[in-house]
C-alpha cells in the first residue's frame, strides 16, 4: 500500500527542484528564527529568575534552541540534496545518507510540535513556581542586611513598577508580612509596641504597602500607609479609590506576560513546522521519482513519486528495528533472542 503516490513529468520534476530549493532556504531561515526565539525566551525567563522557585519552565526555550539548530542543519542538507537531484551522476552518493536523514528529520520536526504543546502544558508549573518565588520575595523584602537576600527588595520594587502590580495575589499580601526591617523601628514608641503585641508572631504589621505599588496615573499623591483607614486621609474612600495603588497581583501579571510571549513564539514555530514538513515531503517525492529515472536511457520520462513505499505502521517498524537492535546489543543476548533478531533482519 503506497502512501502519497504522484505522477511527475520531467518538467514537473524541474519545477519541484526549484520550489524545493526556495523552500529549503526559507526553512533554514525559519530554523534560525526558531533558535533566536528560543534564546530570547530563555533570556526573558532568566531576567525574572529570582522570583521563580524552579527552572522547570526552561525546558521550553531549551527545546526550541535545539530544534532551531537541528532545523538549520536538516534544511541545509535538504538544499544540497535538491541541488544534486537532477544530476544523475551526483545523486546516487546521497543514497545511504537518506534513511538516517529522514529518521532524524522526522524526529526533530515532531520535537518542534512538542515544544509548542509544552509551552501550553507548562503554564501550571510556571504559575506555582512564581507563587512560591514571589511569596519568598515578599517575605525577605526587609532583609536588606542578610547576605544572599539583600537584593530582594530591589528585585521586588523593580518588578512591581515594571509590571504595574502589587503583592503576590493582590496588594493585601503586604498587610500580612512585616516588610519594614526592625532596624528602622523605634521599639520605645507606644505605637510599635502595640502593633507587635497585636499578633502571635510579634511582627510589625501595617496596612501599608511599599512605594513601588504606587500608581503614577493617580490624580492625587500616593497614599501608601493607612490604606484601609478612610479618616486618616482627606477626601479618601478606600473602597472606591481605584487608581491610588496597583490592585492586581504580580503573579497573574507575570503569568500573562510569559503566556503571551509563548503564544506568539508558538505561532511562529508552528509556521516553521509547516514549512519544514513540506520541505521533507517534497524532498521525499523528488527522491523517489528520481530513483525511478535512474538507469533509464531517456531521462525525460514520466515517473511516479510516493511518500511511503509501505504503509505507515510498517515503515515505522522498519525505522524502529535498527534502534531496538542498538539497544538490545547492550543486553546479554540469549540464544532465542539472537535467533529472533536474525530471523527479523
Amino acid at each position, binding site marked *: 500500500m503506497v502512501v502519497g503516490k504522484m505522477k511527475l513529468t520531467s518538467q514537473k520534476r524541474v519545477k519541484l527542484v526549484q520550489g524545493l530549493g526556495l523552500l529549503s532556504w526559507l526553512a533554514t531561515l525559519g530554523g534560525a528564527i526558531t533558535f533566536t526565539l528560543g534564546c530570547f525566551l530563555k533570556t526573558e525567563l532568566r531576567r525574572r529568575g529570582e522570583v521563580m522557585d524552579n527552572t522547570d519552565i526552561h525546558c521550553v526555550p531549551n527545546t526550541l534552541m535545539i530544534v532551531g539548530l537541528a532545523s538549520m542543519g536538516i534544511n541545509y542538507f535538504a538544499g544540497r540534496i535538491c541541488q544534486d537531484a537532477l544530476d544523475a551522476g551526483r545523486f546516487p552518493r546521497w543514497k545511504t545518507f537518506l534513511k538516517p536523514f529522514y529518521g532524524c528529520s522526522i524526529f526533530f520536526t515532531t520535537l518542534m510540535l512538542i515544544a509548542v504543546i509544552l509551552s501550553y502544558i507548562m503554564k501550571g508549573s510556571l504559575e506555582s513556581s512564581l507563587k512560591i518565588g514571589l511569596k519568598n520575595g515578599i517575605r525577605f523584602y526587609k532583609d536588606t542586611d542578610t547576605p544572599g537576600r539583600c537584593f530582594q527588595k*530591589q528585585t521586588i520594587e523593580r518588578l512591581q513598577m515594571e509590571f504595574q502590580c502589587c503583592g503576590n495575589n493582590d496588594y493585601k499580601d503586604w498587610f500580612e508580612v512585616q516588610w*519594614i526591617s526592625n532596624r528602622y523601628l523605634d521599639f520605645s514608641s507606644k505605637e510599635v509596641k502595640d502593633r507587635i503585641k497585636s499578633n502571635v508572631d510579634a511582627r510589625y504589621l501595617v496596612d501599608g504597602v511599599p512605594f513601588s505599588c504606587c500608581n503614577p496615573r493617580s490624580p492625587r499623591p500616593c497614599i501608601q500607609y493607612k490604606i484601609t483607614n478612610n479618616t486618616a486621609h482627606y477626601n479618601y474612600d478606600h473602597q472606591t479609590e481605584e487608581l491610588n495603588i496597583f490592585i492586581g497581583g504580580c503573579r497573574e501579571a507575570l503569568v500573562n506576560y510569559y503566556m503571551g510571549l509563548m503564544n506568539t513564539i508558538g505561532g511562529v514555530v508552528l509556521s516553521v513546522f509547516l514549512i519544514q514538513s513540506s520541505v521533507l515531503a517534497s524532498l521525499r517525492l523528488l527522491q523517489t521519482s528520481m530513483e525511478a529515472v535512474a538507469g533509464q536511457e531517456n531521462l525525460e520520462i514520466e515517473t511516479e513519486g510516493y511518500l511511503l513505499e509501505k504503509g505507515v505502521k510498517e515503515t515505522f517498524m522498519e525505522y524502529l528495528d535498527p534502534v531496538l537492535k542498538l539497544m538490545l546489543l547492550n543486553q546479554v543476548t540469549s540464544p532465542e533472542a539472537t535467533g529472533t533478531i536474525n530471523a527479523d533482519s
Partner: protein
Amino acid sequence: AVLPVKFTKAKRDKLAQLLWVLNWVSVVTGIILFSLGVFLKVEINKRQDLMAERQLQSVPNMLIAVGLIACGINFLGGKICYDCVDTSKFLRWKLVMLPYIICTFFFTLSILVGGLMCYSLHGQLEESLTLGLHDAMRYYKDTDTPGRCFLKRTVDLMQIQFQCCGNEGHRDWFQIQWISNRYLDMSRPKGVDRLRSNVEGKYLMDGVPFSCCNVNSPRPCIQYQITNDSAHFNYDYQTEELNLWIRGCRQALLDYYTDILHSVGLTVLIIWLFELSVLMGVRYLQTALENVWRRGDPECESEGWLLETSFVATARTNFNIIKNLGKFNQINTASNGDPNIDRPSTAHYGPDKVPPKSIPIAS
C-alpha cells in the same frame, strides 16, 4: 592636474563595477540616515511635554530629508556606474555626469552640516529642558485641568525611568505646591499654618512625590518630613544618600539626549566620509572615460584626475563663469555695443569706396 591616476581599460571596468556596488551600499546608508532622523524625532517627541518650545525639530527633519535624497542620488549614481562599463552606454550619461558630480558634492556638504548640527544642539536642549521641567513641576498638581492632567504621570514616569528627582535636585519640590488643594484639609490647623507661612498662599512642605524614591535604598522610602531627623527612627538627613534619587532630572535628560546626539552625529560623519570617497571614485571614473572618448580609442590607457588644473585655477575659472552667467542679457558696452567694430568692412559704399566716418561717441 590634481592627484592624477593612470587607468587601463581593465582598471576602469573594475572601478566602474566597484562604484556600482558602493553606490548600492550608499543607498543603504541613506536609509540608515533616514531612520536615524526618524529615531531622533521620535525620541524628542516622546518627551515633548517636558521641553519648552525651541528649534529642536530642525536636526531630525534635516536628517530625514538628507537620507531620502541620498537614496535617490546614490540610486542614480549606481545606474550611471553600471552603464559606464560599456563605452557606448557612457555616451548617454556623458553630459549628465559632471552636473551630477557637482550636485552630489554640494549634497555631501549638507550631510556634513547635518552631522555638525547634532553637536550644536546642546545649548538649546539645556535651555529647553530647564524651562520645560520647571513648568512641568509647577503644573504637577493640576490633574483636573484639561491640557495638564497628564503632567503628573509624565513627571512621575520620567523620575522613575531616569532615576532623578526635581529639576536640579530634590529640593526643587520643597519650593512648589505639588499637592492639589482638593486633597488638603483646610479646616485643620496644620494646613492653614503652612498656607500662611509664605506670601503666595501655597502649601509647601519638605516632602517629595513617591517617584523620587530610590529603589536601591535598604529602608522603606522616607518621602515626607525629609529634613526632620526626629520624625523618623535612626535617620540623619545629611548622611542619608540612598533614600531618594540624588541627580536632578535636567542633568539626567541632558546626558541621555547628548549621548544619543553624539552617536547619531558620529554615524552621520562616518557616512559623510564614505559618501565623499564614493564621489571621488565617480569623479575619477568620469575624467578617465572623458579622456578615453577624447582620444577616440576605447581600449587605450587614460588618465583620471580630481581637478584638471590646480585648485586655485579651477576656482578662478568657475568664479568667472558664475560672474558671466549673470551678464548674459546685458549689452557689452566695450566697443560701443557693436561686436563687429574691428572687422574690416566688405560692403560697397558707392563709386569712390570710401567707408563712412565712424559716428563720434557722445561724451
